[in-house]
């Protein structure tokens, strides 16, 4: 029996889970073709420039420019090629471009915080962005989220769908963050990117590597035809 790396839905330290986590046990479902297939979104929603969050049509975002890259694989270690990767994040000051974010930090006119790309034939993706700031939230007194980038991945099957958050190495806020700590201790380091000198671009941007492994099985293409 393998131990799940995923957080329990009810994690009371993260207050929003208390009224939103289902209380009934989920019913075990043997995946059928409905679950073993999934959308092939590829380039569909992606437009040119979506993989570079650090510039918009009229200027450059403020902050520490970074490259974030990695490989997406399935549980068997096979690369997940040609699949959509979506990211979103706060700006360098720790502020989201969202009507509900009231944090007293500046918005950046050249930063939306949205990125999209498609993995290549070997499952690799690469974004250019700025390092997001930490920001306060109302979960508990003096609560601050460690800097993070939200990631959304589809894999090859409905079973493999994953939304997660990528963190940065050695963040002192890890010890105080109930969302990061909702993950079983043995798996927390899988959410932390590594500084990557080989992806660092001289005189331009620091590199970080974040590899992603998707749980769940998929049908082979032949089985779906």
């Amino acid at each position, binding site marked *: 029996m393998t131990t799940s790396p995923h957080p329990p839905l009810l994690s009371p330290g993260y207050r929003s889970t*208390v009224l939103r986590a289902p209380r009934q046990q989920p019913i075990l479902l043997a995946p059928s073709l409905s679950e073993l297939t999934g959308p092939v979104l590829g380039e569909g929603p992606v437009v040119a420039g979506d993989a570079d969050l650090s510039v918009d049509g009229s200027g450059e975002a403020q902050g520490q420019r970074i490259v974030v890259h990695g490989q997406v694989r399935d549980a068997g270690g096979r690369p997940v090629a040609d699949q959509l990767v979506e990211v979103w994040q706060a700006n360098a000051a720790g502020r989201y471009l969202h009507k*509900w974010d009231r944090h007293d930090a500046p918005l950046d006119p050249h930063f939306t915080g949205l990125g999209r790309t498609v993995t290549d034939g070997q499952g690799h993706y690469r974004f250019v962005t700025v390092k997001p700031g930490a920001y306060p939230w109302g979960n508990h007194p003096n609560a601050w989220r460690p800097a993070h980038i939200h990631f959304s991945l589809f894999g090859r099957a409905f079973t493999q769908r994953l939304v997660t958050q990528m963190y940065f190495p050695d963040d002192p806020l890890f010890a105080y963050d109930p969302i990061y700590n*909702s993950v079983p201790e043995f798996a927390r380091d899988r959410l932390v990117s590594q500084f990557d000198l080989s992806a660092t671009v001289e005189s331009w941007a620091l590199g970080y590597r974040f590899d992603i492994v998707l749980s769940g099985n998929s049908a082979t293409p032949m089985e779906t035809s």
Partner: protein
Amino acid sequence: MSAGPTPSQTVGPYLSIGLTWAEGPYVVAEDAPGAVWLHGRIRDGAGEPLPDALVETWQADPQGRFHTPGFRGFGRCGTDDDGRWAIRTVKPGPVEGQAPHLVVSVFARGLLHRVVTRLYFADEAEANGGDKVLATVPPERRHTLLAERDDEGYRFDIRLQGDDETVFFDL
């Protein structure tokens, strides 16, 4: 970095920045033959609507086939301030002898992992009666998986917690 599966994390309150597509709710065009709205509200354990949730659907085409050219099969809609979502699509055909259904993911602030359910159609009583997945659900909870016909299409409310909690599945 470890090679084990990457853990899930919540989409957080600002999911609409990253996960909104203008065309997301349209599995098929507004005027496609047989198109209906699948729609509903999402509520928490206190009965409050979720304004920061997202529904995603995946389904076969009307003949029960996946990956038909020209049929995306995938729908995505964030909830509005009243917790409402709506997806324009066509009723799927039967898959592997199962009753017509869509598979559904729900993401939200406060959900550290998506929850997964299935949308069946209340007006397919005969097919539903023979469905192997519905058969695993206690009879008194099956109605939480049935979308009811209405003027716009079919209504499917999702209750994350509490009385009439929607049945969720572990894949």
